[in-house]
C-alpha cells in the first residue's frame, strides 16, 4: 500500500509518465512471466561481503547471515549449508536479530548495510517474520536507508529498540534510537542528535533491560569524499529504558569523536568495551570500563583496533569470558587478557566485519568478511570458508561467444574472474578462473584472440592476459608530458570496439584509444568531465581517520560505448554528469547533458547503451544516489543527444544503473536497479519487475548474449544471474495476451550429444544451475488452467505419437521441455531390472509437432530438431546409428512379448499338469531373462534380455555410429533370439490346452502397464 501511495505521488507530479504524449498503448506483463525463471550461477568460491551474524540463543545449529548485498541466509547445520530466507525484499542487510522470547520463529531484519564504504547498497526498512522466515511483514522505517541494531526486550517481546544509522549520502531525520512498546505497531524516537548523525552501535545490559548503551556517529559520504566524525558523535547510556540518555565520556579523548563500537560482556555486565575514533592517533583505540561506563581507561591503539572505523567498528565479547574480546578489522584480532594485547586471527579473506561465538563452545567462531563466511574450530587460529553462499558482488560483467559462453566480471575486494555459463554437473567453484587481483571491476574478452583485459581499482593496473600462453602484460595509460595528471575512477571504464577487434578504450578524464590492444595509447578527447576542483580533494578525505583509498576519485569518465552501427560515433558518460558524443571518431565532442529534462545537474552517468537499431538512438542511465537522490533515471535520444526523453515510470523501484536493449524488438528493454530487474515491452511506457527466482538485488550490469538471447546480470550481492532465452518476450503483444493459447516461435533446437561424468562436488558446495539443452515448447495461456483435462503430445512428421509430456498450466508464459527422446522400450519381465532398458532413444532430426489438447480445443505447434555438427557424423552414419538403435529397440520389445507368451503358456502347462512342456518352457525362459538374484551385487548371470538391452543401451547412448564389435554382438544376439523364437514355436503347439489360450496381441501387450 505504501508503495502505491508513493507511486501516486510520483504520478501526480508528472514524473511517472513522461512518455504520455506518444500515441502508443502500454503493454504490461505483470505476473505473466510464468516459467521464465532466472538461474543463479554464483560463484560462491569468493562469496561476498557479510554485514552481520546472528546465532540462535539455544540451538547451536542455527545461524543467520545478513549479507551486505545478498539478503538473509539461514543455516540449520552450524554454518555448513545455507538457504536464503529474504528473497522478496531488498537484499542489503544491516542487522538480523532473533526475538529472545521466540527465537525459533520470530526474526527481525533491519535492512541497509552499515559498513559504509563507497559501494554500499541501501535498505528498505525494518521487517519481521513470525514463521522462521517464510513470510515477512514490514514494520516501517522505509526511509531509514540503514538499520544498525535491533534489540528485543528479553522478557517482553512487545518492547523493541531499533537503532537507525540512517542516510549516508544526505541529511535525514529518520535516525537514532526508536522504541516500540506495542510489538512494532507504533514507534517513538527516543534518541536523536541531528540530520548528519545516526546510531552506529547499541547494546543492552543482559541483567537489566532498562540499561542500554548507544553510540551516535556523525558521518557523511559524497561521491568524492568521506567524512567520519564531528562534535556530535558520542556514547550514551540510559538506565530507564530510553526515557533519558546521558553521555558517558569520563576518560574519553578530547575533541571530536568518530565511529564508536560498544560491547557489554555477557557474563559481567559492568565490563564494557568501546573502540574510539578520535582526533589524535595516540588517543584512538580500545577503551574499557569496569563500572558500567562511569569511567573509561584506554588499553591500546593497535593498527587492527583503529583501522578504518567506518568499515570495521565492531567488538565482540566471548559469551563465557569477559576477558576474551575480538575486534573486527583488516585481519581481525583477539585478546585473551581483557583487551590489553591482541593477536591477529588466522588466515582468511581480509576485511572482517562481524564475529559470533558458538553458544556451546568458544573455540567455535563464525567470522563475516568481505569474502564470505568463515568458521573456526580452534578459537580463530585456522578458518575454513563456507562454500555455499553465492554472495559475490559484481561491478560489471561481460560475455564471449564460446559454447557455452563464459561470463567475465570483477568483484568487490575479490579480484576478476571468468567462468562458464554451463558446466558438466553444474557450475562449481573449480569452473572459475582468476584473471585479476585487488578489487575487480570490468573484464573484457578480446573478440577474436585468447586475450582478456582486466583491471584493479583506479586503473592502478590494467592487465592484458593471454589465457593460452598465460602471459601477462600491464597496459594502463600513463602520464605523458604536457598532459595533466590522469584521473581514473575507482571503477575505471574500459571498452572494446564492435568494429575493430584490437581496439581498446580506457577513460580517465580523457578518452584513451589504443589500436593495438593497449600497447600504445592515443588521447582522443579533451577533458570530458566538469573538472570541478571542489570534487578533487581526495587526499583530505576520511574525516578523523584519513581514508584516501582512491575510492572517492571523481570528475572522471565512467562509461564508454562505441556505436555498433558506426565506429565514428562514440558515447562517453562521466561521474559528474556529462553525456558526451563524438560523431567523427574523437575529433569533435558535444556535451549533451544540458538537453536532459528532469535530470538534476551533475548526476552520475552510469551507463550509455547505443542502439543496435539506429545509430542516432542511444539510452543513458543516471544514478543520483550518491547525493541522496534515489530516483531511477533512464533516457532515450533518437537524435544523437540533441534531445532526451525519460523512459522510466513510477513502477520502477530503486535507482538505476544498467540498461539493455533487445537486438530485435526496439520496444523491449531491460533495466537493472538497486532493487532488481525491470522489463518494459512498450519502450518504457510501463515497467514490470521480474521476480521469478530473481530477488530484488542490486543489478550493476546487464548483457544480452547474442547467440542464445540470454540476459546475463551482474548483481552486487548474488553473483551472476541469468535469464535464459528472453526471445518469447519479443513476441508478447496485446493479441498474444488475449488469445486462449499462443505458441511462441521455437528456434531450431540443436540436439545435444555431449556426455560427461558429472562433477565431484561435495553436497556442501554451491552449484550453479546449467542452461537447459532440451527442446523448449513455449506458449502463453490467457488464464490458468485449473478445471478439466489438458495434455500434450509430441508427434513426428507422419503424425505418430512419439511421447506425451505434462504441459504447464500457468496464466502467462509456460515452458515445456523435451529431451528429444521417445519412450523407453517395453522390456521383458524378469526377476530383476534390466538397467539397459531404461534408456530412451533419441529421435532423428526433423520436424515435430507439439499438440496440446485443452478441453475440447486442440493447439498445434511444429518445431525443428537439428543435429549438432560438432560430432562430425554424416547423414548416412546418423541413419545407420538410428536404424541399429531401433532394431535393438524393437527386438527388446519383441523379446518382452516372447517372454509374456512363454509365461502365459507356462501357466497353462502348469494348470493342465503338462509337466514335460512346463519344464521345457521353464528351461527356455531361463535363457531369456534373469530369474534369480537381486539388483545389486547379488545379481545373477545375464541372459538374453540383459545382453540385448545392454547392447541397445550402448548403441543408443554412444554419439557415434555402431562399431564393428557392436554389430558382431548384434548378430550374435539376433541369432540367439531367432533360435529362442523357433524353440518357443516348437513347444507352443504341444502344450496341453494351449490352443484355447487367450493372450494379448503384440500391440495390446505394448499398451499394458
Amino acid at each position: 500500500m505504501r508503495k502505491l501511495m508513493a507511486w501516486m505521488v510520483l504520478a501526480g507530479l508528472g514524473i511517472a509518465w513522461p512518455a504520455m504524449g506518444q500515441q502508443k498503448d502500454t503493454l504490461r506483463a505483470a505476473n505473466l512471466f510464468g516459467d521464465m525463471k532466472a538461474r543463479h550461477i554464483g560463484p560462491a568460491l569468493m562469496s561476498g561481503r557479510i554485514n552481520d551474524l546472528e546465532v540462535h540463543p539455544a540451538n547451536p545449529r542455527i545461524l543467520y547471515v545478513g549479507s551486505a548485498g545478498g539478503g538473509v541466509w539461514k543455516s540449520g547445520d552450524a554454518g555448513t549449508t545455507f538457504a536464503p530466507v529474504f528473497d522478496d525484499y531488498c537484499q542489503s542487510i544491516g542487522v538480523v536479530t532473533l526475538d529472545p522470547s521466540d527465537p525459533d520463529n520470530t526474526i527481525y531484519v533491519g535492512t541497509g548495510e552499515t559498513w559504509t564504504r563507497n559501494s554500499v547498497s541501501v535498505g528498505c526498512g525494518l521487517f519481521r517474520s513470525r514463521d522462521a522466515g517464510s513470510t515477512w511483514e514490514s514494520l516501517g522505517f522505509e526511509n531509514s536507508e540503514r538499520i544498525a541494531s535491533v534489540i528485543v526486550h528479553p522478557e517482553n517481546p512487545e518492547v523493541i529498540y531499533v537503532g537507525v544509522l540512517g542516510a549516508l549520502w544526505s541529511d535525514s531525520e529518520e535516525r537514532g534510537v526508536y522504541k516500540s512498546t506495542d510489538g512494532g505497531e507504533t514507534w517513538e524516537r527516543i534518541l536523536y542528535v541531528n540530520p548528519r548523525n545516526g546510531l552506529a552501535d547499541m547494546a543492552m545490559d543482559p541483567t537489566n533491560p532498562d540499561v542500554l548503551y548507544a553510540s551516535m556517529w556523525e558521518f557523511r559520504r559524497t561521491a568524492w569524499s568521506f567524512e567520519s566524525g564531528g562534535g556530535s558523535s558520542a556514547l550514551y547510556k540510559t538506565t530507564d529504558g530510553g526515557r533519558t540518555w546521558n553521555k558517558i565520556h569520563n576518560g574519553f579523548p578530547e575533541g571530536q569523536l568518530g565511529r564508536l563500537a560498544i560491547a557489554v560482556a555477557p557474563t559481567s555486565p559492568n565490563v564494557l568495551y568501546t573502540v574510539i575514533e578520535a582526533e589524535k592517533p595516540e588517543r584512538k583505540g580500545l577503551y574499557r570500563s569496569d563500572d558500567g561506563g562511569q569511567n573509561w581507561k584506554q588499553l591500546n591503539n593497535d593498527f587492527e583496533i583503529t583501522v578504518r572505523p567506518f568499515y570495521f567498528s565492531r567488538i565482540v565479547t566471548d559469551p563465557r569470558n569477559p576477558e576474551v574480546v575480538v575486534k573486527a578489522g583488516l585481519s581481525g584480532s583477539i585478546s585473551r587478557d581483557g583487551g590489553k594485547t591482541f593477536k591477529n586471527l588466522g588466515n582468511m579473506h581480509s576485511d572482517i566485519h562481524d564475529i559470533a561465538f558458538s553458544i556451546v563452545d568458544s573455540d567455535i567462531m563464525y567470522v563475516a568478511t568481505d569474502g564470505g563466511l568463515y568458521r573456526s574450530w580452534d578459537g580463530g587460529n585456522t578458518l575454513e570458508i563456507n562454500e555455499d553462499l553465492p554472495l559475490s558482488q559484481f561491478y560489471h560483467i561481460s560475455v564471449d561467444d564460446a559454447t557455452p559462453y563464459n561470463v567475465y566480471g570483477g568483484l568487490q575486494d575479490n579480484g576478476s574472474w571468468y567462468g562458464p555459463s554451463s558446466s558438466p554437473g553444474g557450475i562449481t567453484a573449480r569452473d572459475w578462473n582468476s584473471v585479476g587481483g585487488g578489487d575487480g571491476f570490468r573484464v573484457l574478452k578480446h573478440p577474436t584472440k585468447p586475450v582478456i583485459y582486466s583491471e584493479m581499482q583506479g586503473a592502478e593496473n590494467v592487465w592484458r592476459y593471454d589465457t593460452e600462453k598465460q602471459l601477462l602484460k600491464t597496459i594502463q595509460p600513463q602520464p605523458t608530458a604536457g598532459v595533466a595528471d590522469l584521473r581514473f575512477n575507482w571503477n575505471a571504464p574500459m571498452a572494446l570496439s564492435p568494429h575493430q577487434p584490437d581496439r581498446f578504450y580506457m577513460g580517465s578524464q580523457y578518452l584513451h584509444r589504443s589500436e593495438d590492444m593497449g600497447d600504445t595509447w592515443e588521447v582522443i578527447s579533451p577533458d570530458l568531465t566538469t573538472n570541478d576542483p571542489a570534487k578533487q580533494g581526495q587526499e583530505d578525505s576520511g574525516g578523523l581517520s584519513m581514508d584516501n583509498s582512491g575510492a572517492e576519485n571523481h570528475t572522471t569518465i565512467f562509461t564508454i560505448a562505441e556505436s555498433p552501427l558506426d565506429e565514428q560515433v562514440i558515447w562517453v558518460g562521466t561521474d559528474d554528469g556529462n553525456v558526451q558524443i563524438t560523431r567523427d571518431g574523437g575529433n569533435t565532442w558535444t556535451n549533451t547533458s544540458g538537453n536532459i529534462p528532469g535530470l538534476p545537474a551533475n548526476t552520475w552517468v552510469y551507463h550509455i547503451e547505443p542502439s543496435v537499431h539506429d545509430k542516432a538512438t542511444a539510452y543513458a542511465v543516471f544514478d543520483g544516489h550518491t547525493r541522496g537522490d534515489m530516483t531511477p533515471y533512464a533516457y532515450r535520444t533518437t537524435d544523437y543527444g540533441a534531445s532526451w526523453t525519460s523512459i522510466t515510470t513510477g513502477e520502477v523501484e530503486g535507482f538505476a544503473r544498467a540498461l539493455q536493449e533487445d537486438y530485435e524488438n526496439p520496444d523491449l528493454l531491460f533495466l537493472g536497479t538497486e532493487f532488481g530487474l525491470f522489463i518494459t515491452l512498450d519502450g518504457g511506457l510501463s515497467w514490470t519487475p521480474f521476480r521469478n527466482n530473481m530477488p530484488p538485488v542490486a543489478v550493476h550490469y546487464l548483457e544480452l548474449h547474442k547467440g542464445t538471447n540470454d540476459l546475463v546480470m551482474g548483481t552486487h550481492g548474488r553473483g551472476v544471474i541469468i535469464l535464459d532465452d528472453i526471445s518469447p518476450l519479443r513476441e508478447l503483444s496485446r493479441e498474444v495476451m488475449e488469445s486462449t493459447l499462443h505458441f511462441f516461435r521455437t528456434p531450431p533446437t540443436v540436439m545435444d550429444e555431449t556426455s560427461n561424468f558429472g562433477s565431484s562436488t561435495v553436497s556442501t558446495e554451491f552449484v550453479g544451475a546449467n542452461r537447459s539443452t532440451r527442446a523448449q515448447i513455449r506458449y502463453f495461456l490467457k488464464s490458468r488452467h485449473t478445471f478439466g483435462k489438458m495434455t500434450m503430445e509430441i508427434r513426428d512428421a507422419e503424425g505418430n505419437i512419439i511421447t506425451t509430456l505434462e504441459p504447464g498450466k500457468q496464466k502467462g508464459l509456460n515452458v515445456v521441455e523435451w529431451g528429444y527422446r521417445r519412450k523407453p522400450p517395453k522390456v521383458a519381465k524378469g526377476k530383476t531390472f534390466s538397467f539397459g532398458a531404461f534408456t530412451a532413444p533419441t529421435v532423428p532430426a526433423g520436424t515435430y509437432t507439439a499438440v496440446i489438447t485443452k478441453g475440447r480445443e486442440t493447439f498445434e505447434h511444429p518445431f525443428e530438431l537439428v543435429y549438432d555438427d560438432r560430432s562430425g557424423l554424416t547423414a548416412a552414419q546418423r541413419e545407420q546409428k538410428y536404424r541399429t538403435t531401433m532394431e535393438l529397440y524393437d527386438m527388446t520389445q519383441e523379446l518382452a512379448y516372447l517372454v509374456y507368451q512363454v509365461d502365459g503358456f507356462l501357466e497353462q502347462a502348469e494348470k493342465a499338469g503338462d509337466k514335460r512342456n512346463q519344464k521345457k518352457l521353464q528351461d527356455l525362459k531361463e535363457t531369456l531373462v534373469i530369474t534369480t538374484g537381486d539388483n545389486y551385487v547379488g545379481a545373477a548371470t545375464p541372459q538374453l534380455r540383459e545382453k540385448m538391452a545392454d547392447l541397445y543401451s550402448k548403441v543408443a547412448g554412444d554419439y557415434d555410429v555402431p562399431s564393428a564389435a557392436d554389430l558382431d554382438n548384434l548378430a550374435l544376439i539376433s541369432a540367439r533370439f531367432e533360435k529362442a523364437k523357433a524353440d518357443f514355436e516348437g513347444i507352443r503347439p504341444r502344450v496341453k490346452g494351449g490352443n484355447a489360450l487367450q493372450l494379448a496381441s503384440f500391440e495390446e501387450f505394448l499398451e499394458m502397464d
Partner: protein
Amino acid sequence: MKTFAYAFLAVALFTGVTTQAQSADEILATYFENTGGEQQWRALSGMKMNAKVNQQGMEIPLEIYQLKDGRQMTVVKFQGKEIKQGVFDGETLWSTNFMTMQPEKGDAETLANLKLNSNDFPDPFLDYKEKGYTVELVGTETMEGAETFKIKLVKEPITVDGQTREDVSYYYFDAENYVPIAVESEIHSGPMKGQTQLITFSDYQEVGGLYFPFSMSQGIKGGASQPITMEQIELNPEVDTAAFAFPAQTDGENKQ
C-alpha cells in the same frame, strides 16, 4: 488530473480483491461447496488412484491407495514388476528396497510424523478445528499467474532429528473458483533442508460428485518439478488388508 484518475483506478482495482476478502473459513467453506460438499467429502472412505509419473516422456505407472483410517500405499510398476513404496498399515511404515527387492521399515521419526497425518484424509482442511489445526488467511498473492488466497495451515508439531518443529504449510486457493492450486512448505531434513517445496494442482475433474486435481507437479520453488497425472480415481475401493501388512521376506516379488 488524468494521471490521478488512472492512479485512483489502479488503487481501486488493486484493493478490489482485499475488500471482497473473506475469512479463511469462508474460503474453505466455498472450496468444499464447489468440490462436492462437506457431507460428501466426509462420507468418503478411501481412494485408489491410477497415476503416471512422467519423467521426460518415460512414464512410470503408479497405483496409490489412501484410506480414511490413515492406511496408504503406492505401488510402482517398473518393467512389469510391482514395487511398493510408502506403505502404512496403521502401525508400520515400509517400502521395498530397490536393490534387494525386499521390504524394509521406514525410520521411526518419519513414521511418527506420518501417524500424525492419519486423520488428514481426504483433506486436512475438512473439520480442521476438530483435528486441532489452525488456519489463517495470510493475504492475497499471485500464484501461477492467478490471483489466490494464501492460507496458512498449522498441524500437529512434528519431530525432526529429535527436535520438535511446527508443521506449517501455505495453500493457495484460486480466487476465482476457490480450489487450491498450490501448496508450499519448508523441507525440514535431507540435502534440500531449508528450501521450499512447491506442489501445484490442476486439471480438476469430477469423480462421483467430488472434484479432484488430476494433475500435480512437485518440486523445489524456483527449480524443476516432477509431474504426476491421474488416469483414474476410484472412490471407496475394495482393498485387501494383507496388501498393507509388512510382509515376511519374500523371494523378491511383492505379490498382492
